[in-house]
């Protein structure tokens, strides 16, 4: 058996050199001084694999379109086995990546490992840091919730401040017309296609250079016999992976990553706060106002990056023992202190974003979950032939706006005004004035407000009997004694589930003569004409049971 495996391996190795390559990699010579302080680069590589793995998994169930993105993410975290965990791993993984890359750079800076001939390795490292930040920036938008939206609005504005190129950057990010479908698609493409490809490429070059020049030895270790990477240092690396992985896993499993309400471009009360690792930039911005803004937003960060890139050319002294690198310690310490101060200041001065007060009731999946008022509104929508100019969900474009995509920006009052006097509220609106009663308009407004991109398609089709039933229910003011789908007064029994408990005949007889069934009943008799009776009975039968 062993023999056979050996022969197969030899055969493969002979043709691909695979085994030899792995061995070369594992048995690389490293200096005697290598140890725990050199694990960070490997951890970053490990985290990159975790991010790629969880990212691909997320993509399997993610719809890259504004609106849908939000709903599919909601579906991932609430319906799919392990979905919440995987999103957690991806989210916290990105934060840990920033931390680990930071530590890696600090280690290299303190030890002076960027010195000749390793300048190019350092420069690639700085570029990789920028890529990590770009991942964070683009990934932040993808949940398409309120904070994703508003944080990106700020990002885009800053990009627009860049002298000379601002306009082009905006164009490239699809942000010339504000944050919308184009921005979203650009960010998505950057996040899942371009940045990963670039990162892999630069990482390979970076690792190639690390191996070409070898791990930096401390001055003392020069001349000492070398060690092999495997298994001693490999063990240390792996233990470090494990520690980071446990931390990541615990974070993902216990700390919920927030998913706020669907992005709401009309929510002017929202104060966005970026991810923690961008807070220092965010705080810096506050010190510069008006035309100086560009200094904080663009010039300083650019200078900082240039300074980072220049580090190996500024410090060209001979390699010293770490104990003697006081200046390096001082500089790194200062930078860290500055960063920390800015971050803390940002935390203290920006309140945790609060969702706007307009709380939305849980979205109705289909017409059975609408309240009777909303369903009656759907009936008036039909009767008034609103569909001639408006789609509920995206579809063949019509003259008026698609209601599901605009309704969340409006209030009931606004809609009422608009119904009664379209062109006054929206100048130039070709919509005819609606001449139906205020009561009916209220229903219509309630229905329109209930629309979301997620349910609008389902609400396009509502059986006639249900609409008719809801109108009868509404006009007969059943809601003054009964609750349906959480709406109405509670003096009478709730009606969800009545269709499962009673037969149609029973319901019909009960409408005609409630006292026949319960002499104490205070319900007045309703002798609807046959068609109406049938509609309301069918509607009652179709209501979802209370538990649903």
């Amino acid at each position: 058996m062993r023999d056979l495996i050996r022969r197969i391996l030899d055969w493969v190795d002979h043709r691909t050199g695979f085994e030899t390559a792995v061995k070369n990699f594992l048995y690389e010579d490293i200096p005697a001084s290598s140890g725990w302080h050199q694990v960070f680069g490997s951890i970053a590589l490990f985290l990159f694999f975790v991010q790629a793995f969880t990212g691909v998994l997320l993509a399997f169930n993610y719809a890259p379109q504004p609106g849908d993105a939000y709903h599919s993410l909601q579906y991932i975290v609430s319906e799919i086995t392990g979905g919440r965990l995987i999103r957690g791993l991806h989210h916290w993984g990105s934060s840990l990546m920033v931390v680990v890359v930071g530590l890696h750079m600090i280690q290299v800076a303190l030890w002076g490992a960027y010195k000749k001939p390793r300048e190019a390795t350092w420069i690639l490292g700085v570029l990789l840091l920028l890529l990590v930040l770009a991942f964070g920036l683009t990934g932040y938008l993808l949940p398409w919730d309120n904070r994703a939206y508003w944080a990106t609005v700020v990002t885009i504005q800053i990009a627009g401040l860049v002298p000379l190129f601002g306009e082009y950057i905006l164009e490239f990010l699809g942000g010339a017309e504000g944050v919308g479908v184009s921005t979203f698609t650009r960010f998505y493409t950057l996040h899942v296609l371009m940045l990963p490809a670039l990162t892999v490429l630069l990482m390979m070059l970076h690792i190639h250079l690390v191996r070409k020049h070898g791990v930096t030895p401390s001055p003392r270790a020069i001349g000492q016999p070398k060690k092999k990477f495997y298994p001693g240092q490999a063990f240390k690396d792996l233990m470090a992976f494990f520690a980071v992985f446990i931390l990541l896993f615990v974070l993902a499993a216990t700390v919920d990553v927030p998913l706020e309400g669907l992005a709401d471009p009309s929510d002017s009360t929202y104060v966005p706060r970026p991810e923690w690792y961008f807070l220092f930039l965010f705080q810096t911005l506050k010190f510069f106002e008006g035309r100086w803004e560009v200094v904080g937003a663009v010039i300083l960060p650019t200078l900082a990056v240039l300074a980072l890139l220049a580090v190996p050319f500024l410090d060209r002294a001979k390699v010293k023992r770490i104990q003697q690198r006081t200046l390096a310690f001082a500089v790194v310490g200062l930078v860290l202190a500055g960063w920390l101060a800015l971050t803390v200041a940002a935390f203290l001065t920006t309140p945790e974003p609060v969702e706007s007060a307009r709380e939305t009731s849980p979205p109705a999946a289909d017409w059975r979950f609408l309240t009777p008022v909303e369903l009656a509104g759907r009936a008036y929508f039909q009767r008034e032939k609103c569909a001639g100019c408006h789609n509920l969900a995206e579809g063949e474009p019509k003259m008026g706006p698609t209601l599901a995509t605009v309704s969340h920006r409006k209030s009931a009052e606004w809609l009422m005004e608009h119904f009664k006097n379209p062109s006054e509220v929206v100048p130039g609106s070709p919509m005819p004035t609606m001449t139906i009663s205020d009561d009916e308009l209220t229903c219509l407004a309630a229905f329109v407000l209930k629309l979301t991109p997620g349910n609008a398609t389902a609400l396009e089709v509502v059986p006639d009997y249900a609409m008719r039933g809801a109108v009868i229910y509404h006009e007969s003011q059943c809601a003054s004694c009964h609750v349906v789908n959480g709406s109405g007064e509670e003096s009478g029994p709730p009606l969800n589930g009545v269709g499962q408990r009673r037969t149609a005949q029973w319901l019909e007889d009960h409408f005609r003569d409630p006292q026949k069934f319960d002499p104490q009943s205070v319900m007045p008799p309703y002798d609807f004409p046959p068609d109406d009776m049938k509609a309301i009975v069918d509607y009652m039968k179709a209501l979802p049971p209370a538990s649903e």
Partner: protein
Amino acid sequence: MGKDPQSSSRRTFYQRMIYGVSSLIAASLTIPAVGYLFPSRRKGDGQKGWTDAGDVSALPLNEPRELAFQRKRVDGWKTSTERSTAWVVRTERELIAFSPRCTHLGCGYHWETDSDRFVCPCHTSGFSMTGEVLEGPAPRPLDRFETRTEGNRLWLGGVRPISENGGQ
């Protein structure tokens, strides 16, 4: 290397730990991934909803008709309503609603009055009025919807394999 016993036992320890820890990490990533990619279908999902397939009072005896109706479909994060059909036949004993897919490879079939059978054009399976296979490669009788009538209206539930379904 490996000559003195102490360094060789340390080496073995390193190797064991490396294998152990990397398998542990790999397992804690792949197990959730499998659950995520192959979610166990939640019981009754998609079957829960009953759909109103329309008025069947005018349905003649022993003459299959194709009813078209709107059916709610839960597809991932989206709930949509789509047009759907069922072949419905009223026999002396019961009212049967067949799923409109051939049990062979899923083509749509239709009723042929001349030969008095359901015929699938794809690979020429034939089924009797009550769904039994008369000819062709179809492996089992036509699938039936769970049914329920309310007044004149026919309501359809999930598709049930034939053995469990006895009509109303």
